[in-house]
């Protein structure tokens, strides 16, 4: 097995950063997320490989919250359109957990398949090498296994790190991974080490049959009841590693301006606001229901999997304590209304 000591980790990141922008899990003030190693400030930032996960999901690396698409300038009768150049520096997401890797796999489905390839997403995604950190110690609100994610074997990872006593095992899985291995070869040692036994999950839920069942529950009174505490803020969707909805908007000054896309949230009223003034999801209950139907039914109908990787962030971060695990259980227990 290829192995390196924990004390070597910064050296390894330094080396990888010679050829790529390396995103690492950090605590930055009151925030935590994947930030560029270039921006690491040892007086302010704290590397957190020892924590379960970062609070802000890494999806912004492939799907930035705001992204310019093109700019325009009208000169007389002419309109000059300038496509936006997408920065294409190679980058490495270093230390990402299985749930968040799976989320990127779902984004790949959305932006690459079903007849349309999103060029903005592709430009960024093609440059990403994924160095995952296998999860032997699930957190209190983790339920990835229940959602079909293997915490120890993230499929889309190019390299899998496995935490062992005093160090990490480095396991390359793909050609992209092999390139990184070459780069840090002299920092790795050959050593047989014992892998940890994975700990058990505290929370579990059985998703079987939920997508099917939801087909008959659209008008069920339970949505009214369970959406009561929801304040319809966008935390659950913006903290979600899989939520990918975006809006396309424009900024202009006189004759020139630019078009950009930015994350949008189905929890906002504006999300479904139509040009004529009608809004099909005016009520909070309707928006609340849509979030669960998209995650647990509609996405499954189109892609054969729920749009949830069990990372637990929405469960933790919701100010009102709306809990998707509980929602799945409630859906399973609901009597279809007549």
């Amino acid at each position, binding site marked *: 097995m290829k192995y390196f000591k924990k004390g070597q980790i910064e050296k390894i990141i330094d080396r990888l950063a010679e050829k790529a922008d390396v995103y690492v899990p950090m*605590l930055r*003030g*009151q*925030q*935590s997320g994947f930030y560029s190693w270039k921006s690491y400030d040892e007086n302010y930032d*704290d590397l*957190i490989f020892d*924590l*379960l*996960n*970062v*609070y*802000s999901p890494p999806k912004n690396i492939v799907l930035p*919250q*705001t992204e310019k698409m093109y700019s325009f300038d009208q000169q007389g009768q002419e309109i000059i359109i300038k496509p936006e150049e997408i920065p294409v520096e190679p980058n490495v997401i270093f230390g990402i957990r299985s749930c968040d890797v799976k989320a990127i796999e779902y984004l790949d489905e959305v932006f690459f398949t079903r007849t349309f390839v999103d060029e903005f997403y592709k430009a960024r995604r093609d440059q990403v090498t994924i160095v995952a950190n296998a999860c032997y110690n699930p*957190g*209190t*609100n*983790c339920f990835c296994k229940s959602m079909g994610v293997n915490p120890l074997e993230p499929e889309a990872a190019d390299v899998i790190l496995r935490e062992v006593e005093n160090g990490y095992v480095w396991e390359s899985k793909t050609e992209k991974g092999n390139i990184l291995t070459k780069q840090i070869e002299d920092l790795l040692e050959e050593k047989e080490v014992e892998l940890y036994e994975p700990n058990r999950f505290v*929370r579990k839920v059985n998703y079987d049959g939920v997508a099917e069942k939801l087909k008959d529950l659209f008008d069920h009174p339970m949505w009214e*009841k369970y959406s*009561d*505490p929801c*304040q*319809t*803020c*966008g*935390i659950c*969707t*913006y*903290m979600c590693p899989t939520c990918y909805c975006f*809006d396309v*908007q424009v*900024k202009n000054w006189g004759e020139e301006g630019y078009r*950009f896309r*930015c994350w949008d*949230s189905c929890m*906002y*009223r*504006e999300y479904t*606001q139509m040009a004529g003034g009608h809004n099909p999801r005016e009520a*909070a209950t309707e928006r609340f229901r849509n979030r669960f139907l998209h995650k647990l039914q509609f996405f499954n109908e189109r892609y054969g999997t729920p749009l949830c990787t069990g990372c*637990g962030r929405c*469960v*933790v*971060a919701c*100010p*009102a*304590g709306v*809990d998707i*695990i*509980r929602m799945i259980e409630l859906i399973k227990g609901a009597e279809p209304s007549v």
Partner: protein
Amino acid sequence: MNYTDQIREIASRLLENGQVDMVMAWEKGAFDYQSLPYVARSLEDIDKMIFDDYCVHNLSTSLLRYRDSNEKIGIVVKGCDSRGLVRLLEDNQIKRERLYIIGVCCSGVMDPLQAMIANSGFSRIKDTSGLAAKCANCIQPNPVIYDELVGATQEARGPANRFEKVSEIENMSVEERRAFFEDVFSRCIRCYACRQACIACDCRTCIFEETRPQWVGRETSISDNMMYHMVRSMHMAGRCIDCGECERVCPVGIPLMLINRKLIKEVDHLYGPYEAGMVYIEGQKPPFSVYDEKDQDDFI
């Protein structure tokens, strides 16, 4: 602090004799440290109802969902939350006769959100046994408006000067201040949780949702973020009841109460003495809802 029995007793009585159609309180979540907003509509729902140390939420905000209906509502409020009710009544958002207010004299609550973060592996902070951050600045532990009171009257816990941090920012140079605010606002992900949790935000259509015209851009850039926060905070002037919910729910730790407190201080100084929602007098309006020729305008 545990008033579960008292709250259940009152709620049962109200529902049984038809005095209210629903009672807003809390229930336990998946963990001991999680209490969640809960609405009981029938006697069967009462068994789930609780009031304990983790009942941090300001439920008065949830009343906005029922402002167009006719249901009579029982609602459990702490001192700070009750000031929110005063604000809603002043703004004609709900009629007093639709409410049965169960006031709780509050000795301070703990924050389930911080406990969730700490216990779920997302933070280095492990001890969340202390009072919620918002309770450190409490000036009103006892309900200012109620039909029935639970618990013994409490002393305010707030520090001698809750504007200390505000003065610190005021004493910064313009450049320092700009750098400070750029740093905190650059974190904003525009999830609007601060707005949604806010009792002062009772507009039917928020300016940030307007599309014709769109007043504030949707980019998460420093200029759009600053614009969002400037507009948001200006709307808080004379309306913020210092319940601290906006800052508590912010997922990126923006010191929103610092900004709100600056406005509390300014309004008190320019139009006061005034502190929003401290007393309910029928027909009374907050400073920014009335026009008075004697209002100060020398800064315009």
